[in-house]
C-alpha cells in the first residue's frame, strides 16, 4: 500500500516541478489561450480523487483484515 502511495506522490511531484520550471521561463500555462490551465484543473481534481480512493482502499483493507481475523 505504502509503495503505491509513494509512487503516486513521486509521479505528482514530477508533474508539478516540471510544470513550474516551464512557467518560470516562458509562462507555458498562459500560452495557447490558457488551455493548459484547464488541463491543470482536471489533473488536480483527478489526482485528489485518486489519493482519496487510495485512502478508502487502505481503510477497506483494515476492515477486511479484521473480518478475516474474526472468522
Amino acid at each position: 500500500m505504502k509503495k503505491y502511495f509513494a509512487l503516486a506522490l513521486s509521479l505528482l511531484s514530477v508533474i508539478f516541478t516540471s510544470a513550474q520550471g516551464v512557467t518560470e521561463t516562458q509562462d507555458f500555462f498562459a500560452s495557447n489561450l490558457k488551455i493548459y490551465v484547464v488541463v491543470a484543473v482536471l489533473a488536480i481534481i483527478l489526482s485528489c480523487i485518486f489519493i482519496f480512493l487510495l485512502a478508502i482502499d487502505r481503510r477497506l483493507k483494515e476492515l477486511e483484515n479484521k473480518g478475516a481475523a474474526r472468522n
Partner: protein
Amino acid sequence: MNWIYKKWWKWLGAVLLFYVLIGSFFVKLGPGITKVSPSVFGTDSVYTFQISGYHTHFTSAEAEKVQLWFKNGSQYFAPTSLKILSNDIVEVQFGFSSLQQGTIQPAVFDIVMNDEKDGTFALRDGLTLAKASVIDSTQTVLAQVTEPKVKNNKHNLVCFPYREILYETIRNTFFHVPMWFVMTMLVFASFIGSILYLWKGTTKWDVLASQSVVVALLFGTCGYLTGLVWAKYTWYIGVSWGDVLQKLLLEDIKMAAALIAIFFYVAYLVVRSSISDPEKRGKVGAVFSIFAFVVFVLCVFVLPRLTDSMHPGNGGNPAFSKYDLDSTLRMFFYPAVIGWILLGFWILSILIRMQFIKQKQSS
C-alpha cells in the same frame, strides 16, 4: 437510507459527467480577435494592420459582408480598405491625416468586427494611437466616422463564448464551480444528519453526518486548489506564486473566508476523532456540525457579498448573469453540477456502507 444501495442515480451521475467531459473537450470557443499588429500607430501615415481572429469564418462570408471598425468612445472609424487573407486573418488600411491631427488626441481604440457567420465580436483596447513622430503635411487621408450597420449581432454557432482574459479557461466552469456545489450539498447533508441524530438518536444519522463531511472536504480541497490555479492565470499572470497566495489567502475576502469554512470542518473531524465514547462523540459532533454549517453559510455566501472580492458573484462582481452563462455553457453547466453532486454522493454512499460494516464487526 435505502438510497445508498440504489444504482440508477450512480449511473445517471456517470453518464452526465461523461457527457460534460466530452462536451468540454469538443465544443470550440466562439469567434474572437486575438491580436492586432502593429498595435501602436501614429498620425504620420496610413498604416496596414493585420488582424488575427480565432475560430472566425472570414472566407466563408462574402467579402463585402466582413466589416471592421475602430471604436473610440462612441465614435466608429472605418478602415480605408479591407482584405481577407484567410479564415482568421484580415488586412486593413487605416490612418489619420495630419489635417485631423489637431482634433485627434492620443487614444486607445477597440476593434469591432462583424461578419455573417460569426456575428459581432471585438477586442477591447487593442490599438493605441500615439503621437506622430513624423508629420507629413501632404497627407490627405481621412479616417471616416461611420454609423455601424449590421444584420446579425449574434452568431448561430454552437460554441463557448470567447472572453478576453478567460479565453479557454471558461471551460473550468464545469469543473471548479460544481466542486463548491457538491461541497455545499454534502455539508447540508451533514447538517440534516446532525439534526436528525440529535432528534432521533439513531447512529445511522451520525454516520451520515460524519462521512458526508469527509467527502465534502475532498471536494472542498479540489475546489480550492483548482480555484487557486485558475485565479493565478486569470488575475495574476507573471506574478510569483508566493505573492499570489498572499494576495488570495490574506487579502481577498472570498478565498480567506472559504479557507476558514474548510478549516472548521477539518476541526470537526479532529474533535470527533479525539472522543472515544460513541454516544458522546455523536452528540458533540452533531452540535459542532450544525455550528460549522452556520459558519460555512456565513463565510461562503454572506461575508464575501458584503465587501469587494476579485471572485465573480461578490461585491458587485456578477456571476450567473446573462453575460456569464450563455445557452451553450448552460447546456453543460447544469449537467455538470448534477453529475458532480451525484458522484459526491456515490463516494459518500461507499463510505457510509463501510462504516456500517465496521459497526457490525465491532458489535
